[in-house]
């Protein structure tokens, strides 16, 4: 195991062993030194998991806190955007350091700076992606996580101001300037271009869309307050005045715009003779029909009636076909002998002599399909013939074996 791998393992172990302290620092903002945790706190500080907060207190390091925010999709993720401007500044500084190292042929240093630049670019890209996605989710849910109007309005206003900052920060990134300073460094040029610059218009547009939605929502929120008052007041009024009916505004000279709606058009294949409004129209249509037309001349047919007699009807009893009787005997035998497999062909050879085996098998199969719906203990096994074309999709059955499984328990 290399030294860096060992270091990583030590870091993960420290995180796991002190998870309660870290959680406390994350959720409460600070963890204080006492006789029990002193050693653990020192170790976490050495590993840059915690940093000094006050004389006796420690807080979680910014980057780890951001990672936890992101992993838990916490509301605290909203803090990330404020770092954006400083990240861009750092990126520009790192590019400068990389170029100096490159010019001075310090290969190791330039490689280290490149890794740092790469990480910064990915961080920036991830931050923008996470922020915009998270915001979009919030906007689409219309801040459903908070119940009160005041809190919704507060959140809305907060996110609007934050978004404006974010849009400004992206605008201040000056992609042309960044690309210009790395023009002679193809690796960095490509990295910046692919991972950041090309994505910027998408993020910018997305943020602008979110901003527009938030502004509309803020406008709606102002109305919601009035509406809530209206609904509650009206509900109270209706409870006090159970027989209240609004005035008939449809009779006023100027009908209010919102009640000016068309009556839904309904199309029927025939007119409703009970609708009195149509009476005159129907008379008019009927009068237009000439007397000598086929419709008027046709005689009504005598309706035939079914004859009903009260006399006793002769009943005839139909005898069951022989094959049904034989099937019944076969199935009775299977049902009586629990857990015993009985071959349909063997039964046929012993007791049935006037049915062809193939027809007998098909009768058995049919009868089994009918009975097994009611009785799942009746089991069937198909014995297939080996002959036949491979992959033809057909099965050739040479026997059927039935078994009546014993009831469990």
């Amino acid at each position, binding site marked *: 195991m290399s030294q860096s791998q060992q270091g990583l393992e030590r870091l993960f172990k420290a995180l796991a062993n002190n998870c309660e302290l870290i959680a406390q620092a994350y959720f409460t903002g600070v963890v204080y030194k006492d006789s029990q945790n002193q050693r653990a706190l020192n170790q976490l500080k050495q590993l840059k998991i915690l940093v000094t907060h006050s004389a006796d207190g420690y807080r979680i390091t910014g980057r780890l806190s951001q990672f936890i925010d992101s992993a838990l999709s916490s509301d605290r993720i909203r803090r990330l955007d404020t770092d954006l401007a400083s990240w861009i500044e750092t990126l520009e500084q790192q590019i400068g350091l990389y170029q100096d190292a490159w010019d001075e042929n310090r290969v190791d240093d330039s490689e280290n700076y490149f890794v740092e630049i790469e990480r910064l670019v990915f961080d920036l890209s991830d931050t923008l992606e996470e922020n915009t996605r998270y915001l979009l989710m919030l906007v689409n849910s219309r801040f459903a996580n908070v119940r009160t109007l005041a809190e919704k309005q507060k959140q809305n206003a907060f996110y609007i101001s934050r978004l404006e900052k974010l849009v400004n920060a992206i605008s201040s990134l000056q992609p042309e300037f960044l690309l210009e300073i790395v023009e002679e460094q193809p690796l960095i040029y490509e990295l910046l271009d692919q991972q950041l610059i090309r994505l910027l218009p998408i993020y910018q547009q997305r943020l602008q869309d979110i901003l527009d939605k938030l502004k509309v929502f803020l406008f709606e929120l102002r109305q919601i307050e009035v509406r809530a008052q209206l609904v509650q007041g009206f509900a109270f009024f209706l409870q006090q005045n159970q027989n209240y*009916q609004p005035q008939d505004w*449809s009779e006023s000279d100027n009908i209010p715009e919102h009640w000016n709606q068309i009556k839904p058009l309904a199309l029927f294949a025939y007119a409703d003779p009970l609708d009195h409004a149509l009476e005159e129209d129907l008379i008019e249509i009927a009068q237009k029909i000439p007397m000598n037309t086929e419709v008027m001349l046709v005689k009504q047919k005598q309706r035939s009636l079914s004859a009903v007699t009260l006399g006793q009807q002769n009943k005839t009893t139909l005898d069951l076909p022989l094959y049904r009787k034989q099937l019944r005997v076969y199935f009775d035998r299977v049902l009586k002998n629990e857990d015993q497999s009985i071959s349909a062909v063997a039964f046929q050879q012993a007791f049935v002599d006037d049915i062809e085996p193939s027809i007998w098998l098909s009768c058995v199969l049919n009868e089994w399909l009918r009975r097994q719906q009611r009785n799942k203990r009746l089991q069937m096994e198909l014995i297939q013939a080996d002959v036949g074309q491979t992959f033809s999709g057909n099965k050739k059955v040479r026997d059927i074996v039935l078994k009546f499984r014993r009831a469990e328990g």
Partner: protein
Amino acid sequence: MRIICPRLNLWHRWLNMFDQLLKRLLQGDFICEISDEAGFRYLQDTEHARQVDEFLTRLDYRLSSTQNQLAFYAAYRTIDSGARSDIRKVFQQFRVELQPVVEWLDMMMSCLNQDTALSPGDTLSFSSLLQIIEQNQALADRLQTFAKFKDFTSSDDSVKGRLEKLLSTLQKWGYLTLANRDTLIYQVTGKLDYFYQALQFIQEHEQIPIEQGEVDVIQESLF
């Protein structure tokens, strides 16, 4: 070989949209973002709205929208005696809907423990509502009072049966749409914008007192 031209394809889609929307508008439907997103977007385009309005004009109708532009519907261009008779019927239906819809909106504020009234786009989960009402006798009693409105009488006397009836009637009236059949998530439609507009109008013009302050003072003095 069939050649598919993207522009022609798009044109066909628009033409279909035009047909469908006109049929829905003539059936008296409200076209909103929630009940028909594509149709709503189509009508938001000024040129498309003009074409639909032009067609409706031939029938002496016009394209109208709610005050916040959250839903489109067809209205009469000229209000003659025939139109007035139809509008009377629409108004009668509003009278039927007024009390139960107000009661539902108020009850939802209590159920969801919100100080905001429902708005178009808000979602309601049947299972969550059922759970809340079953755990709160006062809400269960409120739900039961809906039975006094003829469209809400249910043969099933359970809370579940009553809630089902409440939501299905509101869906039938166009205030709700079933957004997810499997999880029974309902979504409030743009028609509610129209309802608020009408409610506001009545409150202002009939001077309905909506302040509860006086009564609160009286109640306070009782203790």
